[in-house]
């Protein structure tokens, strides 16, 4: 029930031929009434956003207005966004978990690292630079394009580069990997991702403990100038986001690459009581 039947393919194409042009026309008709592209007098440019441009530096201490809105005015959105990426990591771990006791399937891609002298030497030079640059992007997010997400992704991609060349990480289940891996194990990546979320929410809850609203960094006892306090707290939450993103990127890469090679990602030893 509910599944399209074989004979339905042609019907689907016919319906599509009618429906999709209608969707496009409808969208364009609506768009014709929107304010002109680039109009400085449009509601979007005049109603809420001026405060973000004119007062952000004084109120939050961030010269990068996107960072000010992201981490402070709409910090709750960003907590949600961090939770979304964490959810993806969690999801891949659950979905690609070992099916238990089944023999491993033959490899489907990426069964061996691409070891070669040139790649090896190149990554030895490149990866440290990438990782350092990731931290720079994180810290510099206040005054230039960047921040926790961008830095975290860069850091994660540096780790992925190592994984691609040197082989994948071990799963952290206590067994020795065939190839010595660089960077955190799968379990380590998961712990990093969890720690990031806890750090972010923890800063928000700390603000509540000092009498403010959730995520109201201004109440934290870090100094007398509220803008400076907010700036420090923003750096803190950017670092937390960095951890979650870097950890989740690692989790996603490891689970998907291990999942493609084997029947599932081994999820730890069976030490606890089985339910």
């Amino acid at each position, binding site marked *: *029930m*509910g*599944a399209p039947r074989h004979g339905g393919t042609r019907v689907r194409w016919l319906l599509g031929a009618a429906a999709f042009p209608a969707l496009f026309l*409808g*969208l364009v*008709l*609506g768009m*014709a*009434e*929107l304010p002109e592209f680039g109009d400085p007098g449009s*509601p*979007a*440019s005049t*109603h*809420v956003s001026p405060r*973000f441009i004119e007062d952000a530096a004084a109120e939050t201490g961030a010269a990068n207005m996107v960072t000010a809105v992201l981490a402070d*005015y*709409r910090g*709750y*959105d960003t*907590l*949600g*966004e961090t*939770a*979304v990426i*964490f*959810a*993806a990591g*969690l*999801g891949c*771990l*659950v*979905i690609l*978990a070992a*099916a*238990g*006791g089944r023999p491993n399937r033959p490899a489907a891609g990426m069964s061996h690292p691409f070891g070669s002298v040139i790649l090896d030497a190149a990554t030895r030079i490149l990866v440290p630079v990438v990782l350092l640059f990731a931290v720079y992007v994180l810290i510099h997010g206040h005054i230039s394009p960047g921040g926790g997400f961008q830095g975290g992704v860069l850091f994660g991609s540096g780790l992925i580069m190592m994984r691609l060349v040197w082989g994948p990480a071990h799963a952290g289940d206590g067994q020795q990997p065939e190839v010595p891996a660089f960077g955190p194990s799968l*379990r380590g990546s*998961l*712990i990093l*991702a*969890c*720690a990031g979320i*806890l750090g972010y*929410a923890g800063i*928000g809850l700390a603000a*509540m403990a000092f009498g403010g*609203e*959730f*995520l*109201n960094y*201004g109440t934290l006892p870090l100094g007398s100038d509220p803008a400076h306090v907010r700036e420090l707290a923003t750096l803190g939450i950017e670092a937390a986001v960095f951890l979650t993103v870097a950890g989740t990127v690692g989790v996603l890469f490891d689970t998907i690459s291990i999942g493609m090679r084997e029947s599932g990602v081994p*999820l*730890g*030893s069976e*030490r*606890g*009581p*089985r*339910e």
Partner: protein
Amino acid sequence: MRELLPGLLVALPLVGAALVPLVAALFRRTTRVAALTLHAAIFAAALGLFWSAAAAGPIRYAVGGWPGPWGIELWFDGLSTLIALLVAGMACFASFAQTFGPDRDRTAPASTPLREGLLRGALLLLVGGLLGIVATRDVFNLFVFLEISSLAAYTLVASGGGRSTVAAFRYLLAGTAAGSLYLFGVGFLYALTGTLNMDDLAARLPSVEADAALTVAVVLIAVGLSIKAALFPLHGWLPDTYVYTPTPAAGFIAAVMAKVSAYALLRLLGEVLAGTTAGAVVLEIMIWLGVAGVVAGGVLAVAQRAVTRMLAWSSISAMGMILIGVGMGSALAITGALFHMAAHALAKGCLFFGAGGIRALEDGDGVDRWAGLGSRAPWTLAALTVAALSMIGIPPTAGFFSKYYLLSASIAAGGPAGIAAFAAIILSSLLATVYFLRVLEAAWFRTPGDAPEADSERRPPGPVLPRPLAVPVVGLAVLVLLTGIFARPFERHVLPDWESGTARISAEAP
């Protein structure tokens, strides 16, 4: 305490979602107690807010200390606290049921403490997403939490392995399309008004003169959320998702997931966009689609042989009924819709825990697998019977009152839509009688040997639900009865609040 509760309600599930997998990864122990404690704390926060909003009026909470429209505001009135209470309460039962690990459900991969922790984390994340949708007063923030709940739900659906991964992928495609449609609509609203705050939107929309653009915005938002709410022609993702989800998650997802989207529809179309011409037309169309959904869901439920699939189609019928109430928009209809959300969530959760457990134990989903349940586990079956009676609409269960309110609202609304809604709701009760009596008859009066194709040697004489599932089943059935018996106070609590909320919006509008 009133100042702390809103922050705790939205923060606790996210903290828990990270804490539980962390504990599982570090210590490799079962996280059952930790997760249950967290769910209980979230429920306590929701209960506190419910009382607080009832006693001292709605609560506006500016997250980060930035008031709207610059910051993100949360809004707790009778409506949102009620749904929050429902979500948090169902989550407690689901967390309890999660002890019925996937390793007993034969379709799922084996369980380790880490995997258990991950699944419990996913449930907490789902709860956090749903509570975020319920609480927020910001249309973009709603999108973010919609996606949190969606990703967590895909995870829980796919945790069954095998077929459930295919169901989860199709759900993911439908859900992402829904989210993108919604976000596109929000983009139109933002371009027209420059704001994302719901109160600010409601105040600024009447002065917007771009009718076509506003229509596109309303339609995009309505279609997007209707996909998530499984409104009739957009329900394609629902049956497979509900059927292939492992039992503990299915009880929760079937109970509250679509209803929270229906709540978002109610908030946006019934409150924020209610003043627009397009909004009124869309609500009218929604009544008719709801009628179609009620009938189609009921008819297809009768046609099913597998019990869980029958329950899934019956959910489409119920969502149609809720959206009829949302579409009518009168105070009586909204009360009916809300009451039906609560009544259906409790009853459907109960039935899914029961039916899923029996499916896992008996290795089959046919009606005949229920044979013998009455003699082996009369209390469990009595509880399931109460839930089924509520689905049919027999007094004094909760389902009777929700249908009563919706029927009264249909009569009050009048016109062809009112008559069609009235007829559809009556018909759905008749159809529900047909499909539920079939199951109940097998469970109470037949033994496994009676079934024509049964080989009684292979099977023990009827299933008995294990405690992690039996407790939620019985508990929810008791709640179904209590909700029915205390229907009047419920009505008095929610109704004035909703009316004052609408009045507040129109008073602020220039």
